[in-house]
């Protein structure tokens, strides 16, 4: 298990990332976000869902604190992935490498690594997977930004819808498989709509945070017991 093997094993992630990263770059441009910020997010944040949501929130004019807090909420699930992956990493992996490995944890790299047959994963192997994933994410973002700068205004307007199309494309297949997920998503949307129309003093960013917490907590109490393995 070497670095090189990690790169080869990571190729599917790379193929999946490039189109999403291009879409991300395009979206950023359509929301009039400065290109260096769009790219910087891919370079230092490296978390697809958070970046899309972050751009969506910047687009609706949420405050910095709301955006950062929501990002935190979205990514808190990585705690679980990191904890799970930690058990597969060699105990004597140096701290510097642990830091690098943890930066590269995403839904995709985590899934890929979790499904490796070897019980213990060499850090060089994990780094190989992470580096191919990371490079394709950054490269895809650059392509998206470049393309976004040359598309006509009318098409750029239509691009506003694409963020929501992306969210729907992520949510609907998961909702199709689980009544729980469907109910939680609808409940959350319902609470958010209610807050926006009744408690107009609450800002949109906080409204999203409040709706998310209530709906997720309701999910825990309404659907007791059975496991669900969507992630």
């Amino acid at each position, binding site marked *: 298990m070497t670095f090189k093997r990690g790169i080869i094993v990571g190729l599917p992630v790379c193929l999946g990332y490039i189109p999403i990263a291009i879409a991300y770059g395009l979206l950023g441009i359509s929301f009039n976000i400065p290109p260096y910020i769009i790219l910087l997010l891919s370079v230092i944040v490296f978390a697809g869902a958070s970046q899309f949501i972050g751009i969506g929130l910047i687009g609706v004019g949420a405050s910095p604190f709301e955006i950062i807090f929501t990002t935190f909420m979205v990514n*808190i699930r990585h705690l679980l992935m990191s904890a799970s992956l930690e058990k597969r990493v060699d105990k004597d992996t140096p701290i510097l490498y642990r830091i690098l490995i943890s930066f590269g*944890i995403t839904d995709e790299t985590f899934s890929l690594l979790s499904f490796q047959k070897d019980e213990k994963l060499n850090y060089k192997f994990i780094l190989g997977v992470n580096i191919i994933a990371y490079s394709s994410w950054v490269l895809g973002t650059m392509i998206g930004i470049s393309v976004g700068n040359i598309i006509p205004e009318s098409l750029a*307007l*239509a*691009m506003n819808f694409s963020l929501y199309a992306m969210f729907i494309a992520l*949510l609907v297949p998961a909702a199709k498989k689980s009544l729980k997920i469907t109910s939680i998503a609808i409940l959350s*949307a319902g609470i958010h709509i209610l807050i926006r129309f009744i408690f107009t003093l609450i800002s949109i960013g906080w*409204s999203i945070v409040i709706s998310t917490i209530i709906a*997720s907590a309701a999910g825990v109490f309404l659907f007791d017991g059975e496991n669900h393995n969507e992630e």
Partner: protein
Amino acid sequence: MKNELLFVAIGMMVVTFIPRLIPMLFMKDVKLPEKLNRFLSFIPYAILGALIFPSVFETSENLPAVILTLIICFIVSYIGLNPTIVVIISIVSIYLFNIIL
């Protein structure tokens, strides 16, 4: 505005990196309570629900165009098409509906 976005970017880095880093560095055999685990697993779906509605209706002033595009988007997502293709189909739909309606 520019400084504010830079602050947002750095803040986002900090809050995305820390949850990934802490367990990798410090967690050996800590187990989260099952209920907390499930709460955390529901968060992405709840957030998506609130992000889509009602903001999606504000993407264009042409409400019929948005509704028709939404329906198409739901159908192609339901069939399980790749998100990239769903996004492309939706952009083309709203672009055309904006012209026709």
